Every structure is written in C-alpha cells, then in structure tokens.
C-alpha cells in the first residue's frame, strides 16, 4: 500500500493504520490513547488528521490505510481538530504543571505547549475526582489529572492479563479505579505508570523525590530474573532515584516487572553494609578494608594450609555478575578446592558432567511469539518470570497452545490449552505421561522406563499440541530445576523434544543462571547441596544468603554456624548473616559495579555502574581480585571487569557460545511416589534475591504477605486443621508456626509453604517430607 503523509510517501502492508505509516516515515502525529503494544481505543481523538476526500478529520491511530491515500497532519482542518481536542482535554485538567509530579515528562504538557490555546474559555467549576489508595507502588493521588485514555485499563486486560483497573461510571464522571478500593497486585503494575501520559498514575516510592529534568539516565541490566530486562536507571546526586524500562524489543519489549522497577529502594536501605566488618569477641565490628582483607587472607591460608583446599567451599549467588562468579570459582580452585557452585536452590546434581552444553532456554526470547505450542514444566510462571509469562500470554492470545505441568494450579493469567497440576513426587511421572503419549501418537517405540505409565487425556492433549505446527517449545521452570529429580525431568524433556521436534530448555531462575555455567562455576567436588550436607571449615559466600537462598536452609545454616570461617561478600549487613559470618565484605550491588549477565537465551549483556559505591563498598570483582593478589594466587591481575569478562567470554556482548541442552547417559528411572505429606515451596516474587527482600515498597505489597501453609480441603482435614487456624509445620529439626489456608489448587497430600522467607527459614528441603499439626 502506498500512502502519502504531508507529501512524503510510505509503503506499508495492508491492514496498517495511518499512525503506523507515519511512524515508519518519522512523521509525528500527536496522540495519547494510542500505544503500539495496546489495542486501539481511538478515544482521545488527539491524532485527528485530514484525509483527502474524507469529509471529517479521522483518527490516525485507528484509520486503516488505503492505497493512494493522502494524509495531511498539519493542514488547517487537522490543526483545528487537534486544537479543539486539546482544549477539551484541558478544561477539566488541573493547570498546575509546576507542582505536578509528571511535570517535565508529561505528554499532555508537551502537547499543550504546541496545541493549547491561551486563556481558558472554560470558566465553570472543574471536575473533582477523589484520590484512591491502590497499594504501595502506584499513586492515584491525583486522579483529576486523568484524561481517560484507558491505557492503564487496557494494559491490565491485555498485557498483565488481569483487569484490576477499570473505568467506572460514564460521561464526564468516568473514573479510573479498582474494585471498591482494592490494591493493584499485578507483578507488572508499574508499567501503568509509564503508560499514563499524564500525572494521574505516578510512582508512589518516587513521588516528589525529584524532577525529571534533574535526573541523569544511565543504562543497566536487571539483576533479578533470567530475562535480562534492559533498564534505564535514573540518578541524582549519586543516588538512584528510580528505574524505568529501556526498550529492547527482543528482550523486555518496553516493559519491566515491578521487581525491576522498585527494587532500587534497597540500594539506599539502612541495611546497606558500608564498611567491612569482622567478628571480634563474638560480635561484628567495623574495620578498614586492609584489616578485613588481611584477616581473610590469613584465615583462609591457615585453614587451607592445615586442612587442605577441600576444607573450603565457595558459593555464589546466581544473581552475582559473570565476572564475580568467575573470579570466585577461580579463587576457590586456586586454593585447591573443587567445592564451588552458583546453584544454591538445586537439589539434584546428577546431570552434572553429563550436560551437552550450557543449559539455556533453547530458543531466543523473540522466537516465543512465533511458537505454535509451548509446554512449561514445573514453574510458578507468573511470579517466577513475569515478563516471560507475558510473552506466553500474548502467544496464547494469538494462536499458540500453551500448556502447563505444574505444582499447584496458580492462575498464570494465560489462556491455557491444558494444565495438569500434580504433587512434586508425581511431576516426573506426569511429564513421562506426555512423553509416552507423544511417542504413541507418533507411533514410536516408548523409551525404556516408561512401561508403567498410562497417559491421561490431558497428557495426550499436551502431546498432540507439541506435535502440531512448525515451532514448538518445552520449558523447564524453576521448580523443575530445584526438583529432587531434576535430572529425570531434564532427560524426559529431552526425550519429549526428540519425539516432537520441539525445542527444549530452561527458563532459568536468576540473572546469571546461564552465566554461572559460562563462568565455569561448577563443582568438581562438593556441589551447593553437599557443601552444607558435609560441613566445611570455611565458606566464602558471594551475594548469597544461604538461610534464604538454599534448597535446605536448615542444613545450610547449621553448617555455617559450625564453620570456623564464613566470609560473606554482601551489600547488606542485616539478617541472619550476623549470626554466622566472621567477615562481612561490603560489595557493590549492580548499580555500583560494572559486570555482565547472561540471560536465559544466552545473551550476554554488560553494564556499567551508574553511581559510585555507597560508603566503602567496592565492586565484587575488585574485592576478589585483591584477595587473589593477597593470597599470592596467579592470574588475578585484572585492570577492569571487561578484562575479566573477556577471559571467560572472549566474544564479549552478544550471544555466548556453547549453549546446549543435551544430556548424555541419564537413564529414565521414575521414582516411586511416596505416601508422606510433601512440601511444595515456591519462592515468593519479592523474596527472590537479597535486593528485593529489602525493597520497602515491594515488601508492603500483597505478594509480600507472610507465608502460609496452604492445603486443599482433604489435606486440611487429614491434619485436623481448618482455614485460618494456626499450624505447626515441621521438617527435620526445624519448625515454623504458620496460618493454615484452604487452597484447592494445592494437590492432595501436599502442603504449600513458601521458601526464601524468614518465617520459613527454619524448615528444610523445598520439596521434602513435611509434617503439619495443629498449633
């Protein structure tokens, strides 16, 4: 289709709108309600343009292009229409830009300068709109500023997958609100703040903290989940004031999750460790860096000297940078220890040494939209991976058949093709049933070990979806990786992929779940579980809080308490670390250091620090470098984090090599399903890493509520409890008193008790046996 806009010619595909064509040739048409990621509402009428032969001005956002169409965006008719709309928009809008939080980045303000009249002809009383309290993240204090573009409402319905905001009433009394004062709980809610073209929805933590023009915008990468969202971190006086998405269509599109947007509050939290600390006479004292480093050097030399390298273990957080993880493993190995890992939540390591490559997503994020079918195994999808879930949501809306094999049927807010929700013990058998169904449908011989499986109708439906169409994918989620039979699940997924021709891969828990493999932080002796099961004398912890981050926190904590030396490289000084650490070395969080994350699709993204480290905190890679030097270890003479990176990933930014999800030599042995009560542990979204745990506003959300013991009615009855009653939950020697909750989505014989929370840190394995009695 050929179209002429203000004399410039554009060629666009059939079905494009005038707005699409204008964007293509860089012509700006003013607009408010239009947003490229949302459905077309055409309600603001700001984009009215003149179209040759049309008697009235037409909205560019909604008018389809016809061949040979001639459009005038600046003709008298168009300008008159746009000015008329602007006048209407302003009559009830407060004209107090100087005190508005949106001032300086307000689309209405920007356009009003160009299209607004002088004095207002509207001399009646302005509309009064009451403010609303919708939770700790979004401020709706200034709803009189709303221009009813409904972007926020459409975002909820279309992107977040849940309609929390609506426009109630009609006529000029239309009002954006939640249902009777409820909070907005979507994990993607903050995007509505960005979408709001005026100052109606603003960031509650950021409110009046700074004016937009005072802020320096710096690029960064999210340290949270494995998506690697691109961030614009905004800084004033060396302080991070807020975090916004940086558009990258292939990664985060134009969105970020609330975890990414609001975790910055932890950066300035009083819990920040700003000076090194060492334990003197049983309590932690602040000391200078040289003293602390000296102490660590001597202590490590001492223990390694007397008991050998294997007395030492190193554990890195998968949220640490590639450079940090790499240097930690280098240091630990140089000290003669093979006890190194970056996967604290893992339980089953039997695939180590049998992997065909660096486990990854199996396809590029941007390929998700073209899938015909997808199966996600073992994931609390929405909360584990908000933006990944969002991509699947869009897929399911188009044509893709998305199925879930999950523990507990949390609503992913995705139009699912099929869902099977089973206990952890049954998960391998459930996946095996899909494998067998696929083999049967395709007339292939069924793999050995699956003889006893009898596929149900749902497994057959899932198998069928994976056999249909061009591109299909199987994804293993966090729970599948943390599962006690993770290697079996992996092997089953590989087999299913082989039969169906689908790709198979891991969504990955953290920013460097792939990066840790690239950084070679795999154990040659004890892995993340064993290093606590078989206590060591010394531990070096990098950005990890074992009491919250480990598969079995009870076991980790007892090992740490017994150890002779625990060195923690951490940005924070609060919490249990005070009980067990002998040395706290203040390391810089992602905003204060340079480094790299390798996301789920293997995309290595490097970033720079956006502010100077707080107090005496130092970038982790520098601390490890100095330690290497002080310990006289070879190869620690780095001048920059780039140098470290280039050693481990010579290609630099871009996709890393060596990705592969193959698995060799793991036989399919399906475990028997036990009869005992079993725990299902999800990692609550705002407990997932040390940063979010300390983000004040996030901790006030509904998602940050205290963990409960969730059971279905049958299980509740078995343990003799009722909804709302206090129960004592026990695993091994640890216990916690929690409120019991009736939750019919929890499979029979299971108790859902969240991990990663102080309230449940005394408990044991995430999917282990559990005991519940009335408290």
């Amino acid at each position, binding site marked *: 289709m050929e179209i002429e806009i203000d004399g410039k010619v554009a060629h666009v595909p059939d079905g494009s709108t005038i707005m699409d064509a204008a964007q293509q040739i860089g012509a700006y048409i003013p607009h408010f309600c239009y947003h490229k990621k949302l459905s077309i509402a*055409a*309600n603001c*009428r700001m984009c009215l343009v003149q179209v040759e032969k049309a008697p*009235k*001005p037409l909205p560019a956002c909604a008018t389809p292009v016809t061949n040979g169409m001639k459009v005038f965006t600046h003709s008298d008719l168009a300008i008159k229409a746009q000015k008329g709309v602007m006048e209407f928009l302003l009559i009830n809008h407060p004209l107090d830009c100087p005190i508005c939080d949106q001032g300086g980045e307000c689309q209405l303000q920007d356009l009003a300068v160009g299209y607004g009249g002088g004095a207002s002809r509207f001399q*009646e009383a302005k509309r009064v709109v009451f403010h609303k309290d919708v939770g700790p993240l979004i401020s709706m204090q200034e709803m009189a500023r709303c221009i009813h573009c409904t972007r926020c409402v459409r975002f909820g319905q279309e992107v977040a997958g849940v309609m929390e905001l609506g426009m109630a009433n*009609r*006529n*000029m009394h239309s009002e954006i609100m939640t249902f009777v004062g409820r909070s907005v709980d979507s994990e993607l809610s903050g995007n509505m703040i960005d979408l709001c073209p005026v100052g109606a929805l603003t960031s509650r933590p950021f409110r009046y903290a700074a004016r937009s023009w005072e802020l320096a915008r710096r690029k960064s990468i999210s340290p949270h989940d494995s998506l690697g969202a691109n961030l614009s971190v905004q800084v004033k006086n060396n302080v991070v004031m807020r975090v916004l998405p940086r558009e990258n269509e292939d990664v985060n599109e134009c969105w970020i999750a609330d975890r990414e947007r609001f975790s910055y509050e932890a950066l300035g939290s009083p819990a920040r460790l700003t000076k090194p600390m060492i334990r003197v006479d049983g309590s932690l004292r602040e000391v200078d860096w040289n003293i602390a480093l000296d102490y660590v050097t001597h202590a490590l030399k001492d223990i390694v000297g007397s008991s050998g390298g294997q007395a030492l273990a190193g554990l890195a957080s998968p949220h640490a940078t590639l450079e940090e993880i790499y240097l930690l493993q280098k240091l630990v190995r140089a000290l003669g220890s093979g006890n190194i890992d970056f996967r604290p939540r893992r339980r089953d390591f039997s695939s180590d040494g049998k992997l065909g490559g660096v486990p990854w997503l199996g396809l590029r994020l941007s390929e998700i939209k073209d899938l015909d079918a997808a199966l996600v195994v073992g994931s609390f999808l929405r909360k584990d991976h908000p933006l990944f879930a969002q991509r699947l949501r869009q897929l399911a809306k188009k044509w893709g058949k998305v199925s879930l094999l999950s523990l507990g049927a949390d609503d992913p807010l995705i139009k699912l093709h099929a869902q099977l929700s089973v206990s952890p013990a049954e998960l391998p058998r459930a996946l095996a049933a899909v494998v067998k169904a696929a083999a049967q449908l395709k007339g292939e011989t069924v793999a050995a070990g699956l003889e006893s499986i009898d596929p149900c109708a749902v497994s057959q439906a899932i198998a069928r979806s994976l056999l249909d169409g061009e591109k299909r994918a199987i994804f293993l989620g966090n729970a599948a990786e943390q599962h006690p039979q993770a290697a079996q699940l992996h092997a089953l997924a590989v087999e299913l992929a082989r039969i169906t021709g689908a790709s198979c891969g891991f969504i990955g828990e953290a920013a460097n779940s792939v990066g840790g493999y690239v950084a070679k932080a795999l154990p040659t002796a004890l892995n993340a579980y064993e290093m606590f099961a078989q206590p060591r004398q010394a531990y070096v912890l990098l950005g990890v809080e074992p009491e919250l981050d480990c598969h079995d926190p009870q076991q980790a904590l007892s090992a740490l308490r017994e150890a002779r030396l625990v060195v923690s490289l951490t940005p924070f000084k609060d919490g249990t670390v005070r009980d067990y650490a002998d040395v706290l070395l203040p390391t810089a969080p992602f905003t204060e250091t340079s480094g790299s994350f390798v996301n789920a699709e293997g995309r290595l993204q490097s970033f720079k620090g956006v502010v100077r480290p707080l107090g005496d905190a130092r970038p982790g890679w520098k601390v490890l470098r100095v330690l290497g030097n002080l310990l006289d270890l070879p190869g620690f003479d780095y001048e920059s984090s780039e140098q470290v990176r280039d050693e481990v990933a010579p290609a630099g930014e871009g996709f890393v090599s060596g990705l592969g999800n193959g698995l060799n030599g793991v036989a399919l042995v399906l475990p028997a399903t036990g009869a005992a009560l079993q725990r299902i542990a999800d990692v609550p979204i705002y407990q997932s890493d040390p940063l979010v745990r300390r983000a004040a506003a996030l901790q006030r959300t509904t998602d940050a509520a205290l963990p409960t013991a969730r059971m279905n009615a049958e299980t509740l009855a078995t343990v003799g409890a009722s909804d709302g009653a206090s129960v004592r939950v026990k695993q091994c020697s640890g216990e916690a008193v929690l409120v019991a909750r009736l939750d019919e989505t929890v499979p029979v014989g299971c108790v859902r008790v969240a991990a990663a929370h102080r309230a449940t840190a005394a408990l044991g394995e995430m999917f282990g046996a559990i005991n519940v009695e009335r408290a």
Partner: protein
Amino acid sequence: MAILGAINPMLSVGLEGGDKAWRLADYVRRGGYAALRRILEEKLPQEYVINEVKKSVLRGRGGAGFPTGLKWSFMPRSFPGDKYVVCNSDEGEPGTFKDRDLLRYDPHSVIEGMAIAAFAMGATRGYNYIHGEIWEIYERFEEALDEARAAGFLGKDILGSGFSFELFAHHGYGAYICGEETALLESIEGKKGQPRFKPPFPASFGLYGKPTTINNTETFASIPYILNLGGEHFLEVGKANNGGTKLFSVSGHVNRPGNYEVPLGTPFVTLLEMAGGMRGGRKLKACIPGGSSSPVVPAATMMECTMDYDSISKAGSMLGSGAVIVMDETTCMVKALERLSFFYYEESCGQCTPCREGTNWLYKVVHRIEHGQGRGDDLDLLASITTNIMGRTICALGDAASMPVQSFVKHYGDEFAYHIEHKKCLVPVDVQRAGSGFFTATV
C-alpha cells in the same frame, strides 16, 4: 394506551386488536409467518429475499436511514461459524416510542422479520436488545419467543427446512448510548455500552467478533410485509427513494399523542391532524421531526413539510427515527434545550474526549443561560464548542448533542439573547406551566 391510526396499515395491522391480539394465533390469523413459510417451503434463494428488500428501498428505521437491502448484502456469504442478526429495540431517543408499541402489539412481526433476515444472511443466532425501562414489553417478547419456538418458527430445523435460527431477548438497563449499534453489541457482550470505532463494521466484526447485522425493530417488522406484497409494492406506498409506510411517534403539545403509521411523504399537517391537532388550540412554535437528535424546525417551515427523508432534510433537519416532538408557543426554547443538553451530557458514554468534555460544557453553558447567568459571548462559545465536537467523535452521539444546540440557537437566537440580557425567560413561567397541562388535568 396510544392512539393508533392506520391509513395503509402494514405495521399497525396488528395493532387493531389492541392489547389482545399480539399472540401467535392472532398473528397467524392475519397472515403472519406466511412469508417465512413460503420462503422455506418454496426453497427461495437467499438472493431473492435480499433483492426484494432492495427493491422495496426500505431504509433503516432506527435513525440513520441506511438502505436495508444494501446492508444485508454486506454480510459475508461464506463465513464459517456463527453469524448474527441483532434487533435494536433500545429505543432511547427522546420522542421515540414506536418500537415499544410494535413489540407490545405485534411482537411476532419482529420475530418473523428477524427469522427471514437470518435466513437471507445465513445467520444462526439472533438477539433482540430491548430498552431497559420497558420490562413488561420484554416479558411479553420472551413469551412471544416461546410461542414461536413451540410452533417451530424458531429453533432447529425451522418448518422442516433444515434452516435453524435461535433468537433470544436481551434486556437493557438504562443507557441511551446502547441504541448505537456497536455500543449495543458491547452491551450484549456484557460490557459497558461504549461504541466501537468503525471500521471494522459489524458485518465483518460484530457480536463476539462474528459477522453481524443490526436493524431497528420497525425495519425488521416491515420485512414480512415486503415479502408478502413484493418490494415494488412497498416502495409505491411511499414515494421515490422513500419506500413504504413509517410509524411516527407524535409527542408534546398535541391532543392525541401516539404512534401513527402513514406512508412516507404524508404532509406534516395531516399527521398533526391525526394526532388531534394542537393542544388547547394553541399555535405551533417548533417541531423536532426526527427524535431529539435532529435539528429543531420552526413552525412555518414545518407546516410546509411532508414526512419523508428528503423533505425533512430539505427543511434542515432529519427524519431520524420518526419521533415528532411538537412544541407550542408556551415552550421556553432555552429550557427545552437545557433539558436536551443535560440528556446528552448524562448519556455520553465517556470514552471520547470531545463528547465527554464537550457535552458537559454545552450543558453547563446552556444551564447557566437558563438560570440567568448567561454571558454576552455565550452563543459564540456554544457554536464553537459544537463545531469542535461534531465529526470528531467515535459515534454519532457527539453530533446528536450538537445539532439541537446549533439549531435552537440558530432559529431562536433572540430568545437566548433575551435570557442572557434579562436573566429570565421570554415566555413567562406561568405560561410555560399552563402549557404542560399537568395541574389543570385534574380540574
């Protein structure tokens, strides 16, 4: 009960028996369902039906006057899956009350018309959206549907022909905007009645995203007669380009308000006489000839008009839905406009800026003038606001709100100016009061 005259009764043929002859048996007795039966039994092709409707030059009776046969031919023939026909009985336009009487006295004519339409367009399901405030009528329509189903005129395999059509009633709940066809669809889908931007038009993306045709109640009720008598005959009853008879709802200052069916082209004077002439023998001041959204026409012009699309349009107004609001000299035009402006402001769905903000602004200014707080430049302001609304909204409510303002100010500018200057009505308040006849009614 409304008084119903019938010169050449097509629609009002069923009304003769009054409130007692609405049932299926009565309808069949007066020849009802014959058209449907003939089409199905003689296996007439779909094109035949559409052609007859085209030949009749039946124009939609809901207000816009779009040729019905043409609209039907827009429906995609070979669409797999459900297609819908929807009847618009939301009749909320002030002055219009014909569909209510049609459904009350002759519901089966609408059902038959819809079934024929469904057959012609290959639709399998249909809904009749009924105005919220006429619950009793809705209940009656439900009863009529039951009768039709029981007699095999609706449902699966109608009259053994293999053609199936399910028809249901949907009850509105008080929103004028749901008369707008796409708002009506949204409403059936269980949402706020907010009009959709067109294109896409309902014929390609209608109810639940499926091809849909929407017609007014009276349009559907005309269909059986067109097929019984032939399209040409229907056209001849009216005049060129204005086929058939039309129900006019006459309200206001007349002696016998009610629905009158006359051939299009009937002189206004005749219609006025049928409605018993002016109340109390007073003089006609103004008339809104096509429902509250159409421009007001001063008495002198109106008395020259014939009641058809072309003549009314020449007089600077629109035939619209055929709601004739008659105002005599006791009417204060500012107050009349104030009430209409309130209506459009109140009923604006609120989605598009010019309508949401503009209708409220218009009302506030007219209200101010009526209450003695008008300003010198208010009439210019009103004119300017209306031009900023008109043609710039998603649906025609913006225009509907603007046209009364423009026409009232144009024809009765002096009265507005008087209000602004003297801070009171030109027509004394007690005269206005007497005009309503409310308090004298008992005397």
